[in-house]
């Protein structure tokens, strides 16, 4: 059954702490968990919530994202009405290809918002992995007659560890017993609240259009400082919180990215991220993975299309990775089509796509500071 809800996925540009992986792509396009890109998770959450009109707001370096999403057919979003709308920036007087935050981005895509027919919008960032549906939030939002519902999660050591060294948009919310949001703080040094806003919100489409227009026409761009916080203070909008308890990891730093991938080697994390609902991704028609006679692969996630002849322990291997004879890999994240030749030794290393390391090479990183080798480099 179709929902009366549309989705908008914002692909942000706050990527300084991930620059080794984002020099040629958006954060949303970073490969993760063996065969996915970051955006597959918010997109799967939309599709699994029967949301069939999804806009992707792209900016800067969106080529790899566009290539990944295509017509949306791998997500069953290539329908006649609705479907996937890729919204690239176009340079105009007020837009140089980079947005000044999400309000600015929405202003630039006003026509898409206006033309869509759904009553509600779910707006989300794309720098996290989570596998859930929005069904319960949608139900709460409609029943409670809220103007805006913000999704949050209780802060646990795990989430904060993943995001600790960067403070991009760490928004904490105070929520009372009736789920009303009573306060918001953005990037506090010492947070007063322990509810982390997950950068996912639900709002009526016409209200969103109104709010964006009001803000931009007054020269304000900040969703929090200019829209949400004043509304909470003036009690002018009914803003509610929705608590989400699914496994959630935001990727803001290289270390966080590394830890997330290795955490997926535990049964609990893998089950939470992979099994709750199907996660769709671009089909590649890879052949199955081949393990040769000397292969020794333990505690690892391996995608299709790999050929493994060496030893692999605690690793995530993406599609089409080759590991030569006598090679030893430990605690590594090796992306698509990389080639580890014979007798190479790697520990605590991240390879971006299409990296080749020649025979007898040796790279040993620290668990806290993994070595990252950029896309298409031969060592």
């Amino acid at each position: 059954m179709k929902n009366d809800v549309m989705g908008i996925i914002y692909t942000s540009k706050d990527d300084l702490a991930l620059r080794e992986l984002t020099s040629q792509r958006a954060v949303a396009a970073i490969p993760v968990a063996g065969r996915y890109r970051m955006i597959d998770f918010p997109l799967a959450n939309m599709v699994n919530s029967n949301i069939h009109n999804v806009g992707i707001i792209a900016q800067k370096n969106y080529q790899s994202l566009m290539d990944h999403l295509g017509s949306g057919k791998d997500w069953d979003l290539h329908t006649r009405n609705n479907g996937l709308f890729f919204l690239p920036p176009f340079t105009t007087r007020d837009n140089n290809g980079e947005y000044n935050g999400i309000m600015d981005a929405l202003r630039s895509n006003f026509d898409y918002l206006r033309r869509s027919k759904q009553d509600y919008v779910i707006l989300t960032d794309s720098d996290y992995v989570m596998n859930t549906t929005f069904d319960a939030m949608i139900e709460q939002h409609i029943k409670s007659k809220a103007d805006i519902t913000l999704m949050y999660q209780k802060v646990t050591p795990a989430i904060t560890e993943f995001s600790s060294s960067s403070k991009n948009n760490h928004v904490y919310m105070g929520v009372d017993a009736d789920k009303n949001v009573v306060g918001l703080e953005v990037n506090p040094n010492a947070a007063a609240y322990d509810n982390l806003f997950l950068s996912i919100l639900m709002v009526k489409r016409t209200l969103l259009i109104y709010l964006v227009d009001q803000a931009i026409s007054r020269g304000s761009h900040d969703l929090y400082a200019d829209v949400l916080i004043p509304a909470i203070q003036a009690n002018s909008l009914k803003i509610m919180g929705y608590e989400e308890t699914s496994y959630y990891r935001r990727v803001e730093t290289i270390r966080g990215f590394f830890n997330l991938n290795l955490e997926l080697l535990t049964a609990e994390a893998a089950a939470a991220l992979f099994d709750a609902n199907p996660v769709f991704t671009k089909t590649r028609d890879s052949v199955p993975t081949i393990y040769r006679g000397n292969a020794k692969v333990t505690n690892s996630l391996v995608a299709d299309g790999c050929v493994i002849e060496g030893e692999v322990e605690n690793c995530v291997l993406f599609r089409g990775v080759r590991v030569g004879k006598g090679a030893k890999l430990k605690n590594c994240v090796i992306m698509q089509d990389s080639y580890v030749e014979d007798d190479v030794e790697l520990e605590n290393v991240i390879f971006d796509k299409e990296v080749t390391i020649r025979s007898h090479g040796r790279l040993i990183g620290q668990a806290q500071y993994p070595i990252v080798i950029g896309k298409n480099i031969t060592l």
Partner: protein
Amino acid sequence: MKKKKCIAMLLAGGQGSRLGLLTKVMAKPAVPFGGKYRIIDFPLSNCTNSNIDTVGVLTQYQPLELNSYIGSGQPWDLDMSYGGVYVLPPYMTAKSGEWYSGTANAIYQNIGFIQQFDPEYVLILSGDHIYKMDYNRMLTAHIERNADITIAVRPVPWEVAPSFGIMNTDADHNIIEFEEKPKHPKSNLASMGVYIFTWKVLKEYLEADNADPNSKNDFGKNIIPSLLRDKKNMLAYEFADYWKDVGTIASLWEANMDLLQENPEFDLTDPRWKIYSRSPVMPPQYLGKNAVVQNSMLTEGCQVFGTVKHSVLFAGVVVEEGAVVEDSVLMPGTTVKAGAVVKRAIVAEDCVISANAKVGEDEGDIALIGQATTLPEGYVVKAGTQVDTDALRGEA
């Protein structure tokens, strides 16, 4: 509408009874092969790779699995607004309605379908073989020689030639004689069941064949002999690459094992000739802390905690800790529980091999477990035996 130069008709209605329990609930072309494929992926991918964009799939026996697998044809890029893949089951008309009585009759009943595209040539395929073939080259040969029919042939070892349809040709590759399963073959060129007809000629012969009450309505038994009798221009097109009939449990097992060679005779990895298939939406495969996986092929959704040697595992197969799988083919969704041993066996989809059960032996014929069978704990299946839920119920 714009006419199509060549369309393909894929005969997928056969039961494949020599595959025993494997084809009890699905037609032979739907049988899984090679870790993530089904037999029908090979002719369909060959069509896509040969730029043949219109394919009629003739179904009859147990079509459900095949129909849902083909769907809109999207995995093979055959979801088009003009052309694409069409599933063609037998149908009723105002006056009558009947099953496809033979391969030729199946095409005869779909003359209307073919006429829609007004093709010059029709490619007839079967869904029984594993091979990669450029049909376009065969079509070029057919057109160059102005042939009425071109039959793909393949040299087979002389000792097995008596089990094939054998084509005797002259020096110019003209077919001068056809012998179905001859005791003393004069040639070792076996028909691959791949034909290109000039549509005008085929239509005429299908109509004549249908009018003949004594005909078996079969290409090999009736249509081709009639063409020979009329001295039509018949060309043999020789194909020398890998081509394997997977019509028996032993040959299906063998073809899967062929893929595990270091330099396999049949290479699935060629980027210029990809084999497409409908991908299950599943996470990457996971190998546990004590897993041993060697000389094997695994795909998405597999989880291995035990030992897997020289085997092919399909999507979502689980091998628990302490379980051993050797020289076997485990089809999608099967679980091998702790302490169970599977050797020289094919286990069909969604089976559970319970703790300490034993399937197959080190020597002897291949053991087979039919679809969705749960083998009881400690149950023993001997080499060459076939077991499924009904068989288990019969024993109880």
